[in-house]
């Protein structure tokens, strides 16, 4: 029993032990250079997480799409088709890199890079385990939502830079949608912030040691998931990209790896959004002790990712006016009501507990 407990502790703190080991190479383990090294390593790990997540998720999405329609999905390359994404990536690498005539070259080229870099920035504040936040930021949630909202600018840049009217229309619609859904998204998280009295994601996870906030904030969670799905432009809210109907919204003119970067960024954003949902509402790395915290975290994030895919392959696409109505007339009042109810609940709780 003692050895098993020790082993669990070791696995649980595996990454902290590795950190301490790397830091021990420096004369002063907390010097500027040691911190700098750790920042670089953390950054590389976040990038690896995003690339791996995109590789796995793209395949998983196609598999889920197949399974929901009683097919088996990609099944040729590798064991049961699990290497398909690698072949797709190589195919994208081999494509011609076109820049349309009259395009705003700088904006055209920088937009996919921005989209791809955003999930790296936003995943950097997520605590992946006990003491495992790459950056322990006090304004974690605000930072996260501020970073994800930059992607609206990048979509507009892509649409404008392409010198294509359909791309521009697509970009503007995407911006309209994302700005509308940012508000309920932010408000749905506010309930949790009110309970914990902190924007720090680490503190929020610590506060969920006894009960995850999905139990205290079910309405907030539902609003968060819906608005989050709209925010990362996934079906049923992907009417800008709409694979089956219009070409690709703001990405019409993109080819090869630039388009691939958008794709990677979409899946990275999805990972980041479900990581935030797992952190804020499902208790992050908190969980029964028989599994290490970082496995709990990724399991919770994975469940939300799976739910997003499940929803995507179940529901038909929403119409643009319904989309706006839904954001402003349903989600926004509901999220404000949620804030009021949370405030009332806190007030009553204090009255009863005499705090």
């Amino acid at each position, binding site marked *: 029993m003692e050895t098993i407990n020790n082993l669990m502790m070791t696995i649980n703190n595996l990454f902290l032990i590795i950190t301490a080991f790397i830091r021990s190479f420096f004369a002063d383990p907390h010097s500027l250079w040691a911190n700098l090294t750790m920042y670089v390593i953390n950054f590389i790990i976040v990038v690896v997480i995003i690339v791996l997540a995109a590789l796995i998720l793209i395949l998983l999405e196609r598999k*889920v799409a*197949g*399974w*929901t*329609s*009683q*097919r*088996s999905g990609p*099944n040729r390359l590798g064991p049961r088709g699990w290497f398909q994404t690698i072949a797709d990536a190589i195919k994208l690498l081999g494509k011609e890199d076109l820049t349309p005539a009259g395009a705003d070259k700088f904006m055209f080229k920088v937009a996919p890079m921005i989209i791809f870099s955003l999930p790296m920035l936003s995943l950097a504040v997520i605590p992946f385990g006990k003491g495992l936040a790459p950056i322990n930021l006090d304004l974690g949630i605000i930072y996260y939502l501020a970073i994800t909202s930059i992607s609206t600018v990048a979509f507009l840049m892509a649409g404008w830079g392409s010198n294509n009217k359909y791309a521009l229309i697509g970009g503007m619609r995407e911006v309209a949608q994302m700005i509308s859904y940012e508000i309920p998204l932010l408000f749905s998280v506010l309930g949790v912030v009110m309970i914990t009295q902190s924007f720090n994601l680490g503190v929020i996870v610590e506060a969920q040691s006894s009960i995850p906030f999905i139990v205290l904030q079910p309405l907030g969670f539902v609003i968060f998931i819906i608005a989050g799905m709209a925010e990362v432009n996934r079906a049923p809210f992907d009417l800008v990209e709409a694979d089956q109907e219009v070409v690709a919204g703001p990405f019409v003119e993109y080819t090869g790896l630039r388009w691939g970067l958008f794709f990677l960024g979409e899946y990275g954003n999805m990972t980041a959004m479900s990581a935030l949902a797992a952190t804020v509402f499902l208790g992050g790395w908190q969980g029964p002790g028989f599994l290490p915290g970082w496995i709990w975290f990724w399991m919770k994030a994975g469940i939300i990712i799976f739910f997003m895919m*499940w*929803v995507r*392959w*179940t*529901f038909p696409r929403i119409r643009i006016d319904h989309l706006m109505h839904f954001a402003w007339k349903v989600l926004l009042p509901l999220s404000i009501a949620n804030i009021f109810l949370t405030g009332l609940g806190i007030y009553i709780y204090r009255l009863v507990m005499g705090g």
Partner: protein
Amino acid sequence: MFGKGLLQGLGITLKRMVGPNITEFYPEQKPNLPIRVRSSMGLQKDKCISCNMCAMACPNGVIKLTSEKGENNKKVLKSYHMDVGRCLFCGMCTEVCPTKALTVTQEYENAVYEPVDLKWDMIERAERKGKVE
């Protein structure tokens, strides 16, 4: 209840997801074709009496056959060509065939690289098929 349909839809897709797939892994697993499938033609040379009725019945003029007089003045089939590129597989030629020498078969891997390969020499095909089996 509002949203009941959404939950129902999610339930149905989940059921489909965990249920069995209906995909046939074609090149590895050959499909079981329905009995009414008409996808290829087969000729039994010794049954054919060279009456030319199949060529007459064909709506597209697919069939071209030649024959020569053999012993006791009977027609013997010399060549039998089908331009499958124009064939509908309507089966009228087989219906009209008095000796059922020409039949519709269910071979389906008929894709070819060159247009000339669509001109089938039915006698040669019949001999080749006999060799394979």
